């Protein structure tokens, strides 16, 4: 099969360890609010569907494209496919959603979309990724689920 993007640009994995923890974060009786860095840690090591690189290495996801409103329970992830006509965009978005469904408390609503201008059929991709009925149906499809699980495998290490 021809690759959609035969030679993507690959970037280094960043060191994002939390350096300065605030007093509040260290206090045990205070619940740490979930922030963009925490979400990024969950999704950075998902594997691209067609390359042996992570979504971070391909700059598909980045910390600054993640927004968290902890008090409202809303997480928003924008991702940037490596090419404008990437047919893998829905698979990447679905994998991001599954990963966050697995890791976040159920009170969180997750909105996933391609970054504005990053995809030729942006509106259609975004609509599909945020239709939970379509997502539920897709995850009952064994072939699709296997592809999602392949993307997720790297993130469990």
């Amino acid at each position: 099969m021809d690759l959609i993007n035969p030679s993507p640009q690959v970037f280094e994995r960043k060191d994002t360890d939390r350096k300065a923890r605030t007093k509040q974060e260290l206090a045990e009786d205070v619940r740490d609010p979930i922030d963009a860095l925490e979400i990024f840690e969950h999704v950075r090591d998902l594997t691209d569907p067609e390359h042996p690189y992570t979504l971070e290495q391909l700059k598909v996801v980045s910390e600054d494209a993640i927004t968290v409103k902890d008090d409202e329970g809303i997480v928003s992830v924008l991702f940037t496919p490596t090419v404008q006509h990437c047919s893998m965009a829905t698979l990447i978005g679905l994998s991001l959603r599954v990963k966050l469904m697995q890791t976040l408390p159920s009170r969180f609503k997750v909105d996933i979309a391609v970054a504005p201008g990053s995809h030729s059929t942006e509106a259609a991709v975004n609509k599909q990724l945020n239709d939970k009925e379509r997502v539920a149906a897709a995850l009952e499809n064994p072939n699709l689920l296997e592809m999602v699980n392949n993307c997720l495998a790297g993130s469990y290490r």
Partner: protein
Amino acid sequence: MSQLTHLQTLSGHTDRAWNLAWSPSGETLASCSGDKTVRLWTRRSPGSEEWVCDAILEESQTRTIRCCSWAPGGRQLATASFDATTAIWEVQGGVWEQVATLEGHENEVKGVAWSPSGCIIATCSRDKSVWLWEALPGNEYECMDVKQGHSQDVKAVVWHPEGEILVSCSYDDSMKLWRESDDEWICEQTLSGPGLGHASTVWGAAFEAGGKRMVSCSDDNTLKVWACRSRDGNLRWAPLTTLSGYHDRTVYSVDWSSSGAIASGSGDNSICIFEEEASASADVDPQQKPAFHLAVRQRDAHSTDINCVRWHPTDPTLLASAGDDGSIKLWRYHV
């Protein structure tokens, strides 16, 4: 001051609860789920306020059961599944048995609705089509028409209370009104477009008791009320008002009670109830622009998305809701 009081939480489904259907008498509530089962809930004893699970219909459909609909007599139940089938269930010797399977859709069946006469079952699917099945004696079901027309998956089908019109709601942002004409079902009207229709997926619709008006709900976070008007001798549906600013996320379900209250359930975890202004409801003129006000906003009605709200058919103070948390909740509505 109107309010909604939580009566009971019905637990049992092990996955998202998608849809609810009260039997015509209101004695049984059917719920269906991503756990591939249908649960039937009844009162613990006649007159009791406590509802219990009376039967579980399972091991028939192999994927999510998305929607369920009672036959008007309340003796049969149709269930639509992502496995592309619609199952028909009937009580035989006190036990619920699957008595027929409607096969034909290419993929996920998302909606099913039994016509008020009991003679027709409508189904809709991700395959973009609406199918009409004739219910024949002896649990025989025959496809009588297949309607293409929507350009994307069809989310729901709803019958007019008189059975003359079938409404289909779609991911293509439109609603279509279908009517029988010379043994064929034709698309009489499409409700869509800027200034008229919804701006995103239409998830559901419900008719007012008399059938003169209907309300729809959408991924555009609004509800729209529509009225049937006579124009040039033809009946045309036109938008009356849009209820916006009440829900922050997708409105997945809407229902219109026998006493005139509109309930909506949303991905923002809340249930809203709207009442028509008293002055306008006295003698409803379908030409008049109605004024609906928010009577109740029940925040965190479920801890997750709410997928379905359904008024009890004979007791307009009883409301049922179903959520992604798998629970069904019963509510008492006090005006």
